[in-house]
């Protein structure tokens, strides 16, 4: 279960990443095209179990996340990579 978080700026993304160390495992990635076409960075949080997703969302919000998405990974018929779908979290 993955959660994607976007922030107001690159600096805010970096700051959140540093602050989250030890709280939620996050990976810094480019903002997926499906979400926004402009260039930017996002944090991909991988809570260890699905029940941790809610807590991760709260933590990410607490560190300034302005956009949050649940990442749904599906097997792709045409690619060896999983197809990713992003479901907005209100």
């Amino acid at each position, binding site marked *: 279960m993955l959660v994607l978080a976007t922030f107001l700026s*690159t600096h805010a993304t*970096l700051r959140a990443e540093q602050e989250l160390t030890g709280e939620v495992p996050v*990976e*810094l990635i*480019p903002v997926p095209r499906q979400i926004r076409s402009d260039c930017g*960075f996002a944090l991909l949080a991988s809570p260890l179990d699905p029940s941790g997703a809610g807590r991760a969302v709260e933590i990410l919000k607490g560190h300034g996340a302005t956009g949050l998405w649940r990442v749904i990974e599906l097997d792709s018929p045409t*690619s*060896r990579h999983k197809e990713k779908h992003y479901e907005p979290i209100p």
Partner: protein
Amino acid sequence: MSPFRRVLDARGLACPQPVILTRKALAEGGFSELEVIVNTSSGRENVARFAGHAGCTIGSMEESGEETRIVIQPPVTSGSDPTSTKSLTDATMPLVEPGIQTVFLSSRTIGRGDDELGALLMRAFLYTLTESETPPQRVLLMNSGVTLAAEGSVHLENLRRLVDLGVEILACGACLEFYKLTDQLAVGRVSNMQEITEFLLQGNVLSL
């Protein structure tokens, strides 16, 4: 459909010709097995890798001397309509022909300017490379680029993913030594100027 084997002789052809011809044959279809004959190790690896990416099954790989015969079975369709094999094969082909073979990273950052932003761009680039349908064959690391693959680097996970995709990571030995990282290369192997130059001269290089 009765089994029909098409034979593609790609001996003596330079990279990436064997892959391009394999792709073309798979797109044309009209056979149940494609036998590709190659006589270079890069041809063998690239054709097999490409076939795997295209959703095909490798029926067998027989080596005799320099030659390898790779038998490729295109994805099987559930219906009996003979035209359906072709359409599925088309659908599974990567849209982009194998282009960039070598990515040359001569810095731990992308571009000049703010180093923090440059490092961030490098992380985003390497992550995106791991998601690519057509990853390169190798990533060459030079100057401070070698620090990307050293112990403690934030890029190790992305580099390991690339290795899992079959990408080779080569780090300049003199550069590792200069930065006192000789015994701290965590991903990939040590290379030298001769090998690196050879890959750069082969072309299809993306230099960042």
